């Protein structure tokens, strides 16, 4: 499927974005509002077995209110994070509605537990639209919409020339998601 997508992409349209990825990443990721130090801390401090404290730290970084879910749903959520394997998103269907009603929150949990998943962000979605990839807006964690979002960022990562990949130790998905967010805001 990705081979087909690679052939269908208008690579010329991507070139201006690719030439600016390092600068755009710096702009977004190192903005004080993004709390880059805390992001880095989360990379090291969220690990298996996941605890509620770890998820609380992610909520704090995202600026979200704490989860209002039952003990059983907490367990369901943590089991989900242990079980899911990239690029699967269909496992979303196994979660209670309350857990999938906020795609930002769920995608952040996924990002810090399995770095190949990207954080859902509206500016990033707009950045993708500017490059010709229309991803519908949503608040809910729809497996197909979020799957398309993650898959598209992965595709862009594959197509990018090596000059985009500045020396960093953040996951490459974060590199492109952050650059796309800055691009989308312009």
């Amino acid at each position, binding site marked *: 499927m990705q081979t087909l997508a690679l052939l269908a992409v208008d*690579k010329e349209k991507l070139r201006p974005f690719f030439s600016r990825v390092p600068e755009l990443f710096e702009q977004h990721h190192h903005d004080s509002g993004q709390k880059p130090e805390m992001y880095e801390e989360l990379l*090291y*401090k969220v*690990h298996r077995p996941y605890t509620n404290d770890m998820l609380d730290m992610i909520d704090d970084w995202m600026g979200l209110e704490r989860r209002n879910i039952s003990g059983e749903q907490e367990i369901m959520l943590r089991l989900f994070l242990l079980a899911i*394997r990239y690029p699967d998103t269909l496992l979303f269907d196994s979660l209670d509605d309350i857990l999938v009603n906020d795609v930002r929150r769920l995608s952040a949990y996924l990002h810090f537990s399995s770095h190949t998943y990207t954080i859902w962000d509206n500016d990033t979605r707009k950045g993708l639209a500017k490059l010709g990839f229309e991803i519908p807006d949503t608040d809910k964690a729809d497996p197909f919409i979020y799957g398309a979002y993650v898959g598209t960022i992965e595709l862009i990562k594959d197509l990018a*020339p*090596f000059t*985009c990949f500045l020396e960093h130790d953040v996951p490459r998905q974060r590199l492109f998601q952050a650059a796309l967010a800055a691009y989308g805001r312009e």
Partner: protein
Amino acid sequence: MSTTEIVEKYHPNFEGWIQEFQEWQTRIGFDPAWLGDYRFEIRFDWDSAGDEIEFGDFSGMPKWKRRMQIPQQNIIDAILTMVSVQGDTEFASVEQQNHLLATAPTEYDRKSALRIMCEEQRHGWQMAYLLCTYFGEQGMREAAKLLERNAQDGTRLLGSFNAPIDHWLDFFCFTHFIDRDGKFQLKMLSTSSFQPLAASMGPMLKEESFHLGTGANGLRRIVKAGVIPLDFLQKYINKWVSTGLDLFGTDESTSAEWAYVYGVKGRYDERESEMDADREHLNEASRGLYFDELKAEMVRISKGRKEGEPELFIPSDKFNRGIGMYAGKRYTVKGDPFEGSDGEWEEYLAGILPSDADEKLLMNEYMAPGVEWIQYREWRE
């Protein structure tokens, strides 16, 4: 390649080489289960490779896509050597480092190191593919040798890749200093006149950026934690910088000059530079750019130090060199000639390079279990 190396048996194709590769993984103690979902793939970026030879005496002619298009046997030999050396370093680093996975300071560090090892193996896999696919029987023999030489036996082609990596401080130094040399070598090959080699470099360079980031960030986190004194850390920097500088090869290198003439290996800034290459000093030029980059990076790493700690620095490029015009000569870390006796020189070196006693102190005290010697090591409730 050395004529003394004997390949007992080799498979007649890449599929056969893959079987040997799997046996090599087991032999060096790398459990294939650690790979998880990771799959070794052959990756090319033909767009960035270009179609026309970019420099040297064949400049302007179409890049060579197959061995039969390469006009001279000595050019084939030069390419074979470069691909073999590159592949050799990739497998060597996995042999040097895989034992560290069991003692990673954090889960993320373990994952990062594992990813680096997977990608280094993929790079070696890619080089083996080039050898097997484009260079016939000779290439297949060289591909087999990639798995026969071993860092633990000291038989890898370059000195740094036979040195033991005993702990995580060495790992971060290795990824920061030696992988950075790797980035330079890959970029110099990314403009190669042999198109499959040039096209291999783009994907490898993408992956290498993470390796460098891991090294630089690891050192930064050690500095920020403030447990390992910086004058002690400086000794490890002194040790690794000279090793990294030596990897660029001899001064006034004729093989580098010939590689440039053939268009096989360019300058680090080949596409960016507006000046003609000084063909007699190619290694020196690349080494100079590497040295400048090290200095700039060390300023960033040193910024996180605690009050009262000395600033970390990159020692002079004359210090402790094994290759080039300063090889075997006595210079201080500041680049001044050392004037003392043999005994005083040994004493000086003992004070500025890690000794056995320093290694013990590092392992038993600074990096002892329970010590938060690197930032974000422990989970705090």
